[in-house]
């Protein structure tokens, strides 16, 4: 069985690259993520995790950020390029 092409950001494995399909939620948290450019089509790579597996260290486009798993779970990805 081939692994699913779709997953949420907290399920990504270190070194894996994927593209955002959509972000869950209509609260200001999803607005903030959108302001940062975390939206459909953006390329994300999981670079690593902090102790206890949280937060995640990510590459978004060409910048690096730390994001908690709880928030990462709202970001849905697909592992083949959208473009």
């Amino acid at each position, binding site marked *: 069985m081939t692994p699913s092409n779709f997953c949420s950001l907290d399920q990504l494995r270190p070194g894996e690259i994927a593209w955002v399909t959509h*972000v869950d939620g*209509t*609260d*200001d*948290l*999803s*607005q*903030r*993520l*959108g*302001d*940062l*450019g975390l*939206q*459909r089509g953006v390329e994300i790579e999981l*670079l*690593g*995790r*902090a*102790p*206890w*597996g*949280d*937060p995640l*260290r990510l*590459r978004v*486009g*060409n*910048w*690096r*950020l*730390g*994001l*908690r798993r709880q*928030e990462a779970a709202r970001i849905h990805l697909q592992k083949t390029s959208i473009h």
Partner: protein
Amino acid sequence: MIPLVAKAFPAPLKPITLALVGNPNVGKTTLFNSLSGLRQHTANYPGVTVEIKKASVLHKGVPIDLLDLPGAYSLAARSPDELIPTQILLGLHCVECRPDVVVAVVDATNLERNLYLVHQVLEVDLPLIICLTMVDMAEAAGATIRCDLLAERMGCPVVWVHPVKGVGIDILLDTILGYQKTPKPKPMDWPLALVKETEQVKTLCKKETPDFMIRRALFDTDGEAAKDLILEKPLLASALAKARKGLADSGFLLPQAESIQRYEDIRKRLVGVQELPKAGVSWTDRLDAWLTHPVSGTLFFLLAMFLVFESVFLLATPIMNWLSAIHEMLGDWVLTTLPEGPFTDLLAHGIIQGVGGVLVFLPQICILFTLLAILEDTGYMARAAFLVDHLMARCGLSGKSFIPLLSSLACAVPGILSTRVIEDRRDRLATILVAPLMSCSARLPVYTLVVAACFAPELGHSPWLGGVMLFAMYMLGLILAPLVALVLKRTLLHGPAPLFVLELPRYQIPNWKSVLHKVMDAGWSFVGRAGSTILAAMVLIWALLYFPTNDLKGGSYPKRVNLLKQEGKGEEALHWQAIWREQSYLGIAGKAMEPVFRPLGWDWRLSVAAIASFPAREVVVGTLAQLYAQEEEEDNIVKALQATDSPLTPAAGLSLMVFFALCCQCVSTLVVIGRETNSWFWPLFTFTYMTILAYAGAWVAFQLGTWIWG
């Protein structure tokens, strides 16, 4: 005659007001510093905790007023603090007038995300200048940026600077002078549905309300812009909801629609502007693989924190001892040279002591901030916050609260000052409010005194007991601070969890100018702004311990004590000094309070000492010395505590230690909390909750001690 005078003194030019905006970590503060030098000051506004740096400079004879707006990724505002930049840019702020021109600082290595904020600023209808930073880094990574094309697409001049080296600053300043000739910025065309709904809402608003403010009120559901407008016109609440529904029906789904449309527009504008290299593994990534690794990263983090903490202790202690030696010498000199009287005593024990009490914190503040500024400028601070975030999240805080709390183990004052890196208001407040619970270095003299007097091996205790007691006192703060933070975040500071977005900037070599700036800033905000209040409090306490000076028969205590001293009867002088303190206003208050402290196992001396040590905990040792009529040396006080008719029992000693571990007997901390929160409520709150906690803890400790030691 008149024209001649006018020629000699030309009318002063109206200054150009300039606002700096930009994302965090793009070198905005460095640019502000290199534009303004050291001539800057901070502005506080009622009801908010943000500070805005201001400075005035002269370029080619034209005065320019600079305004450094807080770094942000977007103008969306969920708190009054976040609305301030929008209010200033639109000319709606209560204090600041509208700037003439905006300079947007943009990191060239990350154009797309940086231009998001710029894209919003295009709509505030002010002349705009884009100032690119880190162009050298972008080029080193293989990127090329066509500034002329970017300028054309955005409709504003683009200049590039290297704020650390000072390259491009003059060109930027020249562009600022010519702001009136710059082309008009080109904001994006919003979909017709949005334009219509905005018009609809506008009919209900005050006439002068800018479109941008209305769009913000529409975009930010439950945001501050909407609250602000609804406050003026309550009718707007339903109108905004209706407009949002109308937008949703036409496919403009908030809250994401704004960012989706803006980024789409930005990407269109950037076509051909930048040639991006293929994202490779940078050396920041390689370093991060080690420094954020669960094992090697944690080890390095512990080592770094240990080194920071040790250097503050090791480097600051000799300077602090030296400072206290100087102010003691100065006090003695004043007492021996000037004629005796209340004025001399005020000078020696009130003012000199008070100034000393302020200055004694400076070495710690400067050393800690030098190290923290270096850690921050290298980019490591973000990694440290990343590593401990999960731990801090359990008590409702974020990784950014860790360093301020750790610093508070040395001293709560620099700890509280260093909470400025925490953007979320509630997180910052919670951190400030629990920072004084950490056992600071000023508690150590109290602990060692009590341990020596009650738990020494000579008294038949285990030789381990002293160390265990000390450890327990430190643990008390380390355990209670997160717990109190959790309670605060669940009650008083309750609210939606802030989004934890931690940008991990590139590692870079720190710039000494920027480090120096941060250190001076921290030092100055303590000495310059808190110093005077601390001094006033010290003088007040002095007066309460000094007056009244006459006994019931009208004899003067100071005269008697002085006379005895001159006659060489030191012991008798100390005896009278003790009686004098006992009948001072503070002594009377302490005696009156004795019943309150009796459940803690304290006699009146301990009660007076605890009350008199309100300005600073370490004063308790000196006050006890005075009350027990001893010279101020630990050995003597220990002996006195053991030998008096009612010696300090281990149970009472333990309760005294616990009380001091948990109370907030420190005027400096309270004043700094007041300054940083811009309110008097929070210092009062901190003092109250900590005193209640200290009393309860001391009571429990006394019961426990009585049970163990009888």
